Structures are given as C-alpha cells and as structure tokens.
C-alpha cells in the first residue's frame, strides 16, 4: 500500500521506495531523514481542509512532513 493511502495511526513497515520516480534532491533528503526499506512508519496527520496534503508521518522516532506525491513513491505494509 502506498504511504499516501495508509490509514492514520496504524503501524506499518516500508517495503520499498521507488527512488527513480523522485527528483534527485527529494530522494536524497528522504534518505537522510531515515526513509529506508524495513523502517517502521506510521501516518499521523493529514493536511488542511479538503486537500489532506501534506502528510505528517512518524519514521523511526522522528516526525516528518511530506507531500502526498512523494508519499506515493513509498510502498508500505501494515504490521499485524
């Protein structure tokens, strides 16, 4: 399931990240913020009004804000 479709407040694990679909700079920043396959992730909040964009997600122990177009490149799996 893509990160932008992940239900809120449910723990998931990053399965893969489609680096190719991301601009270089965003891919680089995403990596340095700790986005990696195998890392625990959780969608926490969605943006204002009807846009629901950007997303606030927990990655490791850090909260990160990112836009849904970037989140779409991150494939996750809900932990049971």
């Amino acid at each position, binding site marked *: 399931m893509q990160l932008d479709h992940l239900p809120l407040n449910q723990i998931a694990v990053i399965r893969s990240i489609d680096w190719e679909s991301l601009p270089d700079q965003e891919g*680089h920043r995403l990596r340095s913020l700790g986005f990696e396959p195998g890392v625990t992730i959780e969608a926490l909040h969605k943006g204002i009004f009807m846009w629901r964009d950007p997303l606030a997600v927990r990655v490791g122990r850090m909260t990160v804000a990112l836009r849904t177009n970037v989140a779409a490149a991150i494939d996750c799996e809900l932990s049971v």
Partner: protein
Amino acid sequence: MTQMPPLVALVGNPNAGKSALFNALTGARQKIANYPGVTVERKSGRASFADGRAVEMIDLPGAYSLDPDSLDEAVTRDVVLGNLSGHRRPDALVIVLDAGNLDNHLRFALELIALGLPTVVALNMIDLAERDGLRLDAQALARALGVPVIETVAVRRRGLEPLMSALDGALKNPVAPIEPVATSFGAQNQRARDIARSAIISETAGRQWTRRLDAILLHPVGGVVILLALLFLMFQAVYGWSEAPIGWIESGFALLSDGIKNAMPDGYLRSFLTDGVIAGVGSVVVFLPQILILFLFILLLEASGYMTRAAFVMDRMMAAVGLSGHSFIPLLSSFACAIPGIMATRTIMDQKERLATILIAPLMTCSARLPVYTVIIGAFIPASSVGLGIGLQGLVLFGLYIAGILGAMLAAAVIQRFVTQSRTSSFLIEMPRYQWPRPGDIAINLWQRAWVFLRRAGTIIFAATVILWALLSFPKAPEGSNVSQVEYSVAGRIADGLEPIVRPIGFNHDIALALIPAMAAREVAVSALATVYAIDAADEDAAATSLGPKLAADWSLATALAFLAWFVFAPQCISTIAVTRRETNGWKWPIFMVSYLFALAYAAAGITYWTARSFGL
C-alpha cells in the same frame, strides 16, 4: 604562552538542541559574523575547561549529512573537512545528538566520527527522551562508537562539566577511530540503527505529548484557525503592549531635547542637535518596543517547535502559488526584517522556489514599515473600537499586513509561472518535538536582534537624518522671504523634481521629500517628515507638538491612504537590495526586484488615491 585556544565545533542534526548547548557553554559572550566568502552566519564564543584554559567554540549550521543539499549544510561540511579557505579546521568536534532520535541521528554521527578528529558525543535532551519513555545506556553507546558519550540537558545546564572534561581528554589523547567508513548510505543507516537498538535499555510508547498537541495544532480546520488567531494576537500585541514603553522613550528624548535647548544658545549647532540628531534618531528608536515584541513572538514560535507546524498548515496554500511550506518560515521572519528572512531562504532546497521567495520577501511588512504605518494610522484613523475588544487602528494595521501578503502571493504566482518557470515545488521537513522555550536562550537572541537594530539606528539612520537635516537647512531662505525654508533648501529643490512624478498618486511636496531618504531605510521616512515639520514650524511650541496632528492637519485622508498603500509595496531599503545581490550572486535579480516593486507601489498608491477621492475623502 601565546598559543591560540583550540577550536571546537558543535555539529549535529537540525533540532538536536545544538544552539541551546552552545548558549549554555558560552553564555552571552558570543560573536556573530559570516563565514569567509559565504553569507552563512557564524556564531562563535568562548568556553573554558575546569582549570580555566579557554576554548573557542563555533556553532555549525545543522545538517543531516556531509553530502549537502543546502548552502548551510555545505558550510558545515567544508568547515569540518577543513576545506573552507580562510577558516581553520576545528581541532575537535562535539557531536550533538537528540537522545530521543538516536536511530535517525546516529548515521550522521558515524560519518563525523569516521573523520578521525578528536570527538565527544553530547547525548542531548536526555530528559525529553526519558519523558517520552526511552531509557538509554550511554556507556554502551560510547563502546559502540569508540568516543566518549556524555548525557546532557543543555537547557538545564546538566552534563556541561563532564562534557568539557571529556573534550579536554579527547584533545590531549586523540584515539584512532574504531568506526570503519561505511560505503553506502544504506549500510551507514543500517549500522546506525543497530547501534541505536543496542543503546536502548527500554522504551515505552513515546512522543505522547507531541502527538496529542499535533492532533490539535495540525487539525485540518482547527489548525488553520489557531494559526490565524496566533498571527492576529501577534499583531495586536505589537500595537497594544508597546504603548507604555513607547511613551517612556518619547518622554526621554523630549527631556533630552529640552535640556539641550535650555543649556545652549540658539544657532546651527543647537538646531543640528535637537532638530537633526534627537528628532531623527529618537523617532526611530521609539519603535524598538514593537520590533522586540515581533521578534519575541517569532523566536518563541521557533524555539517551541511550532514554526514547522505553521509551515505544515500553510504548505498547501503556498503550493497554490508555486511555493511551499518551506517558504513560510523565511517569509514570516521577513515580518520582522527582510534581511534575516532572505538569509533564511538558504534552507529551501529548490533553487527556483528559493529565488521566488527572495523576490517576494520585501512584500512582507517588515518592522521598519511599522513606524510609517503607526504615525499615519495614529494621525488619521480614530482610536475607536469595532467591538469584541478589537481596535479599529489595529484592524487597519492588520489589513495592511494582509495587503502585503496578498501582493506577495500574486507576485509569487506570476514569478513562478513566468520568471523562474518552475513546474513543481516540494515540501519535506522534520517536525521537532514540542518543548518549552528557555527564557535565557530567547533573551540572548532578543538582545542580539535589539543590538543590531540600535546599531542600525545609530549608524545608517543617524547618517541619513543628519544628511537630510543639512539638505533641509541649507541654503538658508533669505530673511523676510515668503518662500519657506523647506522649499528653499537643497532637498526642497530635489523634491521639486520628484513632485510631478508622484503628484498623480496624491503625494505632496513633503512626501516627495521624505521618499528620498526612505531609500536608506524605510523608517527614515518618519524621521524625515519629523525633521521637515520641525524645521518648518513657526515657533518652538509648534515644533514641540508631535508629528501626527500636523500630518492630520496638512494631508487629506486620500493622501494618507495612498501613502500607506505605497509603503505596503514600496521601495526597498538599501540593505535589502545588498543582501539580495549577495544571495543571488549578481545584479540581475535585485534590479528586477526593485523595478517590479516600484511599479506595484506606484500602481497601488494611485489606485488607492483615486478610489478614495471618488468617495469624497
């Protein structure tokens, strides 16, 4: 012994509490300058070991890795690698880690330790980590990293002495790094996570506070309401809280002026001191309380961790004009002053977005415009209430800020569409945990801002007002002439040339005159008007009454409104143009910026004037 004290660099991720640790170690004895050749701010200060030997400390810009994606990060890399020419390489590093964020911060720490400089790790904000249910084993971490690890709570000054003695030890007995340089980013990340896991003794569900607060402050509707309410409160406070201190400063300057008038015979020198120096500098210093209140709010928002939430809330709206939440922080800083705002754009990764943000930053109503707004609003808008404790004057001020914001949004959309031709913007940012701002850190920052402002009032503004006084005082109008001194002076003649250009937008001769020195700094427009009217006054009593009533008697409401509209968009101060040139590496963009802003200001003032006239004002 004339040996230089060792240079120690504090380095770490953004939001690791680096600056708080730096403040705690060096106290208020800090120097702010720029790194050689770049415009990144360099903060340095002195600390000392237990036996009194001095250490020179620098606070490097926060970074996520030695592979930079911003100018700030590039400076950090160049300094720690010793590649910044004109800057000596640090003799040791203090790596500041957020104890609550080890798994994300350790990767950069590993990269730094592998450099082989004497290194000490400060496991900072350990109290917040414990509050969030995390217990860490500093000794295990030290064994895994091969360098000393000291638990610190910078804001409570905890762990500072052990940190300094560990640093002393590391400088005396450098040890070779045990950490092999990992080859790939992924391998580094994996290694970092393994070490983090081994250092965690126990963890329970964490971050409850931050999460609960975020549920309110990032609420899809409530979050927007709260942000707008905060901004509104901020602007009401700037007006309301500053009244009393402004009164004190005014009476102080009046006392000084009277003292000089009683002590000295009438003449050029007395006129120079009272009408030139005291009237000019005084009318600017009087706005220090408002500027400090504005900075206080911005510093509190930053230190508490709310600023990135504001960026989150604003991101989608900024995206509508081709910007992102990243631009929100520099633009908000620009409400205090465009110069730190433009410098803060360095954190924007996307270069087109950065340029667009620089170009619209001067449209945010900086504190230098407040003096102009305050005088005109005070003179022309009645101090009545519109209900709910909201004053009409404050409301008009709020409206002027909104006008600037709307102008900026429009300009951004046009610039991103046609000038930078940017297709997309991006928003990707760490949101730190909430924390109580430490009064000491806020005070140090506020003091640094106040000092910068006073130095400006003391130099640029002083020089501008003195030159203006001279232009206004010479040549002397002949005795018994029916031409007033202002009209007869050099400045009056320059303004004569300018007047036909600004006449169509409702400006009179005095305004044309005030616009000349306002190029030096916007707030000088006020002192210029004060000087013009003080010198033109028939007697001492007329000069003693404050500027507002004189303007109210002399200008039509339409002119006053046009003047306000002009200043919403208007001419830059020279410092803003200079910093834009420096940040964009050339004259192309500053010239573009000045031209489009002048055009906007002229149009806005004209439209305002003729609309007001058609309503019979």
